[in-house]
Structures are given as structure tokens and as C-alpha cells.
């Protein structure tokens, strides 16, 4: 075994996973073919709110190849209610959430019947032969109207309001009373922002295969959460947990969209049990868009109190958050994750956050990249710009006045979080320099003076976020049903190769590469000698899976602890082998030696000795394996400064990003290439919210943006070449010093873009434009019209859906 000389941590390693992922030489769920496998297709409600009067399956049942047609009623006794693991308040209203509607449908896209057939084509054919009789009910779509309880989504609940959650700094003792600050303020700004509904748009559509043979249910699913899925499926059905094995093979993205226990996973399981044969379900893109959970969809009313010198004294946040028709796994908690982030990097005296979750007849919402934090960051960063405008101050100056100084860390915020480390000055200075802030301001002046048709705007976003979900005791205090720890195991194989088992569940992030780098450094073994196993509850028996930028800071720390345990045992055995005192054993580059002598044993020698167990110290067990579980004490807090310059064509309303600088501080960087990749993708998604993406429903509740021709996900061609770099202020709360990077780009970029567009056109009388900033909306705002114009575009996948999309 050769030792690695150069440290692996910090190396821009190409990803181990890429060759197989890029060439398709891997196993995606939909590739799985089992003997005797049947196929499931799901009939979905075309209406958003209706009583089901009757479902006639007789024609479908008689069709060729059809094995079984089932309705919600057929499964009513066994399907239970899909789990919601986050009852945010004791009195939260939680309607039953059947995997398949039994007597009422509450959103267009909800499952009402399913067909099991011998192939996917025949299953789809039979859907058209199922006749459903609906008694339509009034549709509740608008969030602001839904709170009035005029029409009810779930009449049994008596209200559309699901729960109200409050954080108040005066009550919590973390600050003063916000109403007092508002009453005494020299400046009070009140703004309302809309976070449009978004669709996670993972690349691989969802897919499930359930094999009920061998007295065990083996479930392959394109999921982010194999461990949670196993637990929740057993909690929802009468199938015991130890009789379920969940495997997440290679999974093509999730963005939070696969952090779910889906109706289809449950239905596939029950169908396979009923048939006694394997059953597969794979969704189409449109099916995904109209039934997999959506993200965001909030109305944010923000009140900011400040002094004339620019010091912010109080912030009040009043939210309405659209849950859609049901509470899915963590739906109610998503806006609450933002509660701790509205104060962002700033020192405010007072803070109050009130969020009311509301039911509507739309697809349920749940986690989507950033989950609560993009909304918070957007609101506060927009408000800081609004304050700068109000006071005629430079927007960066006003941020600087209010932010936590480097020397003030660790800092306990008005929202009760303790930020361990940060250096906002350094990240900002670097960003300003790379951006050429002053020159752009000068050009902006020139264009304004010339009355140029293309105006230039500059947008700032100085952000932080909380990552590393999460200290279990904090989750408990927030009434979350699970813990936030993570686990890792290391198995040293007799040839010195290393098997790592992780409880995280990568779905595109590159954990195999990064985990290998960490272990290579820790144990002094070659990068190539490490194999990372994940995503199978049979090999990785416990874990809390991947979301919330948690995998490295929590799962990586568990891995470090497991490696340290291996080394501790190996050191003991090495001392025994070299007949010296353990205190005299030194370990470097994969080799143990006796201090001051040339006597040495490689880790491989020691591992083999442990494996054959011919001569072990008294009481030592054979083998060289270790498990570790890590429960963090605190979150981690990446931060950064993003600057965006946009050119706004005032004649067409078209926005073009001219340059984008992102300086992120994610602590220690294990693999810069992967960090850059995460930042680039994150920026694309955050920019997409600002400019392109929006889930639109017509007045009947039909999703009109149910194809990628209508729901505009940008490609590389629509984005600038990003300038990204980093400052590094290591986290003090984990041994790696890492903070998490999965969501940073998405969280930071949306307000940078919107601030920049508004900066370009504010002098023309525009005060706000609703997201996404489509050319029509920008142009309409420039005409002095309403900023939320939305006219359906002809075209789209023109041929297919002329109603969809947005100009």
C-alpha cells in the first residue's frame, strides 16, 4: 500500500461517479427488469376539487394485458395516510392524506385509480378506459383568498388555515419588542413579496420497483431518503420495518423533490403485495410536474424599522405559506426553516416572525433547494435595497453598517441562532474587486444620462444560511419527528482496501468522491482504494439521508469519527506487533512506527493481522471495522456575497445577465471542483426563480405549465459565465471545518438578480416587479402598469398546450 503524500482534502478530483453516470453504465430505477414484473400506471384527477361519485373500471379491467384495476376505495383499508413528520404546532390541522383519493379529490393530478398490466403501454392504454364521475366543488387557489375561508379545501377542518407558527424575540428573550421598534422608528418600510410556486425539476423522473418475493419487500426508488422511506412505509402500512428493504440506486437529482414519501411508492408497494409479483412505476415528465411536490409559494409581508442613519432596528415578517392540498413529509416546516434566517447576517434589535400555513386545491408543496431560506434571504436582501433607496444610501454600505463584524463571532442572533464563524468583510471585498463595482456604477450613470434603451442594474445579495441539518435536540424542540444525526462505518478489508458505508444518500452530489478523499487522508490509503456504499438499507442500516446541505458537515464528521476509531484500534494492535508502548506509536501517511526507530508497520499489515487474528492483544476482537454516529451541536453557517449586473432592454422588457460574481465562504473545501459545480447549479436554479420558472394554474386549478416547453428551466445558453471564488473561514463546529454548499447558490442568487433589475429601472418609476421577471412583466412595469401581468403565451410546445407558459 502506498501512502498519499499530497493531502486529498482540497484536491479538485474528478468525480469517481462521472464515468458511469455520463455513459449511462449504471443502474437507474427504471432500468431494473425483474422476471414476471408488472407495470403500474396511475389515473390522475383532471379536476382540482370534486367529490368522486363513481368510478367504473369494468372496461379497463377487460382490456388486453390488464391484470388489475384498483381505486382508492379498494385500498382504503390498507393505504393509511401519507406521513407528515413535522407537526409544527400542537394544534396543527392535518387532513388525512390517502395515497389514492377515496371519495374526494383535492388537486388536479391526484391519483384516483391505478392499472396493473403486463407492460407499461397497456397499463397506459387502460387508463383511458376508466370512467370517473366527478361532482365538482368550488376551487380554492389563491393563497390570499384562501385564508378568508370562504370556500374550504377540506370542509371537515372548518378552515383552510393549517397552523400558525410564531417566533418573537421579545418572548424568546433574544431581542426587544418589534412593535416598540416600529413605533419608535425614524423610518418604517412595508413591502409585500410573492414567492412564486416552483417545480423542483430533477432530471430523472421518479420511478419505483417493488419486489415482494423472498418474504421481503425490496423497494428500489429514485429517492433522496431510503432510510426515512423504509421507516415511514412501515409506519403507514401494516408491513413491518424489518420486512422492507429500500434501495436508492443511482438517482438523477432531487433538489428536495425526492425528499418525500410519495403516494406512488406506497401504491406500488401495496400493488406488488396484492399481485405477489414485482411491480414497476415510472412517471412521465408531465405526471411529475402535476403530482410530485412543488416548492416555495408564499406571500411575504415584511415590515422593517430603521434609523435615518441606516441602522435597522426591527424586522417583522408575516407569511402566508401555501401547503397545497395535503401535508406531505415536511411541508409545514419548510417556511419555518426560514424563520431563523430573515435576520440573515445582520444585527437587528427586534424580530418577529409569524407564518400561517394555508391549504389550497393545488399540488402539495414541500422541500425545494434552500427550503425556507431562499424566501428569507430574498425578503431581507430586497428590503436592504429598499432601505438604501429610501435613505439615498449605497446598498452595500447599508449592509455593511448592519452586519455582524468578523471580530464579533461567535454571535447569537436575534432569531436565537449562534453563528460560529464568518467573515462578511472578506467575502464582500473580494466580490467587489472581481465585479468591478465602481466601473459598473459609472457605466450605469452614463446609460441613465443618455436615456439608453438598454439600462444597467447592479444587484447585491449578502447572505448566510443554516446548513448541516441538524442538532437532534433542536429538531425535537421544533416538533420534528426525527433526529438530525448521521452515521458512517468503515470496514477494513483484509487486502487493505476500504469499504465506507454512509447513511447519507447522494443523488448527484459526488459523495463517493468526497468521502474517499476524506478517508484517504485520514487513513493514509490511496483514493482509489476506497469504495463508498450508500443508499441500501440492507448494507447501510441506519441513516438520515441527504438534504439541507447536511451530508458533508454531519455525515462527513461521522466518517471522520469512524476513521479515528479505526486508527485507535490499529494503533493498539501496531504497538502489540512492534512490541512497544502504544504511547510511542506514531502514525503518518498510512504507516505506524515506533518513535525514534525505523520499526514500522503499514496500516495494511495491521489490518491483515487484525483479520487473521493469530496474535491479538488480550481482549481485542478480530477485524478492523468501526461505526460512528454524529449528532451536531449546532448548524453550520455558510455565507457569501453575490453581485449581479443585468442589462434591461426597456423596449422589450428582456433581462440579460451581464456578469455574475459569487464569493462564497463554505468553510474548508474538500473538493473545489464539486463545490464549483454545486455553486453553478445553485446559481442557475436561483436565477431561474428570478427570471424564468413559475408553476401556473388556470382558474380551474389545472397546471398549465406541465411540460418543459411551458415551465422554463434555463440552460447554459441562458446564463452568463459565472465568476466564482471563495473565502474560507472554517466552521468551528465540526472537525473538517466544512459548512455545506448544496443550497448556497440558490439562496443567494434570486435577490441579487431581482435587485439588479430593479436597480436598472427604478429611475424610470418602477418600484417592484413580481417574479419571475418575464420580459412582459418588466415591460408592463415600465409602462406604469401592474407588475404582475400574466398573459398566457401562444406557442409553448405550441402544438401541445397553447395555454401554458408565460411570456
Amino acid at each position: 500500500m502506498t501512502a498519499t503524500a499530497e493531502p486529498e482534502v482540497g484536491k479538485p478530483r474528478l468525480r469517481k461517479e462521472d464515468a458511469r453516470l455520463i455513459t449511462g453504465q449504471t443502474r437507474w430505477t427504471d432500468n431494473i427488469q425483474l422476471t414476471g414484473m408488472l407495470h403500474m400506471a396511475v389515473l390522475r384527477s383532471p379536476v382540482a376539487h370534486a367529490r368522486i361519485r363513481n368510478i367504473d373500471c369494468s372496461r379497463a379491467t377487460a382490456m388486453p394485458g390488464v391484470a388489475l384495476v384498483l381505486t382508492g376505495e379498494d385500498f382504503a383499508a390498507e393505504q393509511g395516510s401519507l406521513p407528515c413528520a413535522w407537526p409544527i404546532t400542537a394544534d396543527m390541522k392535518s387532513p388525512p392524506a390517502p395515497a389514492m383519493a377515496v371519495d374526494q379529490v383535492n388537486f388536479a393530478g391526484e391519483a384516483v385509480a391505478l392499472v396493473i398490466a403486463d407492460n407499461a403501454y397497456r397499463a397506459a392504454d387502460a387508463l383511458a378506459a376508466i370512467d370517473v364521475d366527478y361532482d365538482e366543488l368550488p376551487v380554492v387557489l389563491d393563497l390570499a383568498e384562501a385564508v378568508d375561508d370562504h370556500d374550504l379545501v377540506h370542509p371537515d377542518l372548518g378552515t383552510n388555515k393549517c397552523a400558525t407558527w410564531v417566533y418573537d424575540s421579545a418572548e424568546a428573550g433574544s431581542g426587544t419588542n418589534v412593535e416598540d421598534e416600529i413605533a419608535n422608528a425614524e423610518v418604517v418600510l412595508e413591502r409585500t413579496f410573492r414567492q412564486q410556486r416552483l417545480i423542483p425539476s430533477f432530471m430523472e423522473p421518479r420511478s419505483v420497483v417493488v419486489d415482494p418475493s423472498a418474504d421481503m419487500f425490496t423497494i428500489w426508488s429514485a429517492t433522496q431518503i431510503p432510510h426515512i422511506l423504509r421507516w415511514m412505509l412501515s409506519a403507514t402500512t401494516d408491513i413491518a420495518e424489518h420486512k422492507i428493504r429500500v434501495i436508492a440506486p443511482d438517482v438523477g437529482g432531487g433538489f428536495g423533490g425526492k425528499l418525500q414519501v410519495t403516494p406512488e411508492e406506497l401504491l406500488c408497494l401495496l400493488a406488488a403485495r396484492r399481485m405477489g409479483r414485482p411491480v414497476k412505476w415510472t412517471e412521465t415528465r408531465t405526471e411529475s410536474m402535476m403530482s410530485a411536490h412543488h416548492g416555495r409559494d408564499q406571500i411575504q409581508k415584511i415590515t422593517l424599522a430603521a434609523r435615518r442613519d441606516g441602522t435597522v432596528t426591527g424586522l417583522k415578517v408575516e407569511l402566508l405559506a401555501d401547503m397545497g392540498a395535503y401535508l406531505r413529509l415536511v411541508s409545514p416546516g419548510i417556511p419555518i426553516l426560514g424563520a431563523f434566517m430573515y435576520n440573515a447576517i445582520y444585527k437587528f434589535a427586534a424580530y418577529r416572525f409569524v407564518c400561517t400555513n394555508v391549504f389550497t386545491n393545488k399540488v402539495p408543496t414541500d422541500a425545494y433547494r434552500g427550503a425556507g431560506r431562499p424566501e428569507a434571504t430574498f425578503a431581507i436582501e430586497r428590503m436592504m435595497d429598499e432601505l438604501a433607496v429610501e435613505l439615498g444610501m449605497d446598498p452595500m454600505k447599508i449592509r455593511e453598517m448592519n452586519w455582524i463584524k468578523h471580530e464579533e463571532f461567535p454571535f447569537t442572533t436575534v432569531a436565537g441562532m449562534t453563528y460560529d464563524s464568518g467573515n462578511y468583510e472578506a467575502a464582500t471585498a473580494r466580490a467587489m474587486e472581481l465585479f468591478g463595482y465602481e466601473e459598473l456604477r459609472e457605466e450605469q450613470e452614463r446609460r441613465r444620462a443618455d436615456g439608453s434603451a438598454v439600462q444597467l442594474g447592479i444587484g447585491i445579495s449578502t447572505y448566510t444560511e443554516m446548513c448541516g441539518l441538524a442538532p437532534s435536540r433542536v429538531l425535537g424542540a421544533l416538533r420534528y419527528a426525527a433526529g438530525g444525526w448521521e452515521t458512517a462505518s468503515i470496514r477494513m478489508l483484509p487486502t487493505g482496501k476500504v469499504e465506507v458505508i454512509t447513511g447519507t444518500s447522494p443523488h448527484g452530489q459526488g459523495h463517493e468522491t468526497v468521502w474517499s478523499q476524506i478517508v484517504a487522508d485520514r487513513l493514509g490509503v490511496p483514493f482509489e482504494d476506497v469504495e463508498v456504499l450508500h443508499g441500501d438499507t440492507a448494507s447501510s442500516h441506519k441513516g438520515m439521508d441527504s438534504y439541507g446541505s447536511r451530508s458533508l458537515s454531519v455525515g462527513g464528521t461521522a466518517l471522520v469519527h469512524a476513521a479515528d476509531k479505526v486508527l485507535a484500534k490499529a494503533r493498539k494492535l501496531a504497538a502489540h506487533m512492534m512490541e512497544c508502548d502504544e504511547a510511542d506509536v506514531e502514525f503518518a501517511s498510512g504507516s505506524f512506527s515506533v518513535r525514534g526507530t525505523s520499526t514500522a508497520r503499514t496500516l495494511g499489515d495491521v489490518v491483515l493481522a487484525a483479520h487473521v487474528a493469530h496474535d491479538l492483544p488480550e481482549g481485542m476482537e478480530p477485524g478492523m471495522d468501526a461505526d460512528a454516529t454524529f449528532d451536531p451541536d449546532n448548524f453550520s453557517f455558510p455565507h457569501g456575497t453575490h453581485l449581479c449586473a443585468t442589462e434591461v432592454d426597456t423596449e422589450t422588457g428582456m433581462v440579460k445577465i451581464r456578469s455574475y460574481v459569487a464569493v462564497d465562504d463554505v468553510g474548508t473545501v474538500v473538493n473545489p471542483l464539486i463545490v464549483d459545480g454545486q455553486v453553478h447549479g445553485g446559481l442557475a436554479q436561483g436565477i431561474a426563480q428570478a427570471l424564468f420558472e413559475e408553476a401556473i394554474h388556470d382558474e380551474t386549478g389545472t397546471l398549465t405549465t406541465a411540460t418543459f416547453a411551458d415551465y422554463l428551466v434555463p440552460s447554459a445558453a441562458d446564463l452568463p459565465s459565472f465568476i466564482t471564488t471563495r473565502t474560507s473561514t472554517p466552521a468551528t463546529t465540526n472537525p473538517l471545518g466544512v459548512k455545506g454548499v448544496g443550497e448556497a447558490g440558490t439562496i443567494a442568487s434570486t435577490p441579487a438578480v431581482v435587485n439588479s433589475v430593479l436597480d436598472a429601472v427604478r429611475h424610470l418609476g418602477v418600484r417592484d416587479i413580481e417574479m419571475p421577471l418575464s420580459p412582459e412583466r418588466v415591460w408592463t412595469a415600465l409602462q406604469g402598469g401592474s407588475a404582475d401581468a400574466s398573459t398566457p403565451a401562444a406557442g409553448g410546445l405550441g402544438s401541445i398546450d397553447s395555454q401554458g407558459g408565460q411570456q
Partner: protein
Amino acid sequence: MIPAEFKYLCPSTVDEAVRMLAEEGEDAKIIAGGQSLVPVLRMRLAAPTALIDISGLTELTGVHDAGDSLLIGAMTTHYEVQRDHLIHDHALLLKLATDTVADPQVRHRGTFGGSLCHADPAGDLLAPALALDAVMIIAGPDGRREVPASEFFAGYFETAVAPGEILTDVRVPKYPGWGAHYEKLNRVAQAWSIVAVAAAVQVRGGTIAAARVGLTNVGAGPVRAVDVESALVGQPATAEAIAEAALRASAGDGYKDNLARVLTGRALTAAVAG
């Protein structure tokens, strides 16, 4: 893709394809590059009983010099249109519009004829075909007939191609030395036009001798901006004259109406310059 069941047929001549269309009846469909038809099948918005794949008909590919016009085979792909020298020299507008269609993958499969037959009002090749006075050559059970572009586009996704017929070629008069430009506004690269303007201009001695302007996605089909054209002819090729003429473009509703004017101005400016 999980479409409904269909029969798949591969003719090797146009005559055979026409015969197959007749035999299979009116629920049969031609499939060319499949870039519009496949999404329709995938979403089960249509369930043709038979697909007649004309991609093997070599007689429908390529661009030929026919004296004062070009003859473009219906199966010529977007990619081939983009790279063809005859088109570049004599019908530049067509190339420039094709450059903006979708992405390289789609352009390698999608065909010129398929785009015209599909007749999506947001399709980018309809307005150039109309502006350039293209003539469609259609084969049917009774032989071939020619239909000018002005009569070919019959409305929303509708053309003069009747059931049982195939578009075989498109005849495009030569426009040597004309300046051209296709000005398209779309939100992301792979999205369709919100509005686009196709312009071709002939400038002689600083004067606009002739002008052709077509608008994309402002109605049920492509629209020829005849008022703009007539306002330009005989005018000096100046910014003022263009701005004046562009004001005559229109497209009904507020935003699109504005775009029609703005993009017409830009298309003409670029066409005159280039």
C-alpha cells in the same frame, strides 16, 4: 415514451408513401424528424393508427439549384439548411431563422418540411417562407400540385396539405444580394418565439428597392407585414425611414403589439446593414 399503439411503415418512394397513406386511411400520419409529432404522441394528444416514416425517402432531401429559384426537399434537416451554400447565397433569411430553432439535437432531426406542415404559429420558418414567397409542392393520389405560401398556411396548425398528401419540396425564389435578418424574442434558448420578425431587404444605391417582412406568432399563422413593406419601398435606407415603417407593424394585444414594432425595427436595421 409510452404512446398509444400504432403501425409503423417505411416507404422507399414518394409514390409508395402516398399509396400507404391512402391504404391506412385518415388516422395515418407522416412522421418526418419527429420533433413535433413525437411529443404529441408521447402525451397521447394524438393516437394515429399508423406512422409512415418518410425519413428514408432520399428524393426528399437536399437543396437544388432550379435556375431562378431553389428547390428544397421537405426532408432537408434544419442542420442541413443552416449549412447549405445555395441557401446562404440566395435565401439567407431562411438560414438565419433556422439558426434560432431549438438546439443542435433538434436541428439534426427536425426538417424544413416538417416545420411547415406542423404549422405551429410560433414556428420560426413559417414567416420566412411567407415573406420569401415560397411555393409548396405537394404530392397526392392525383399527382403533384403547387401551393403558394400565402395559401398554404390555413390557420392554427393547419395547412393546405390534405389527408393523403405529402409535402415533397419547397420552391424558394432566389434573393441574391439581399440583406436579411431574423429577430426573435424568446425567454430561454430552447423556448419558442414570443414574437419574431423575418426581414429581407434589397438596397440599391442607398434606396430600399424591395422589402419582405413576415411576423411569427402574432396570429393563427404567419403574417406578412405588407404595410411595412410598402412603406419602405423607394425610401432611403436610413434609420428614420426604418423607424417610420416599423411603426406600421402590429399584433393586436399590448405587449405583442409593442414587440412587433420594436422587433421589426431591429430586424430591418440589421437586414439593411447586412
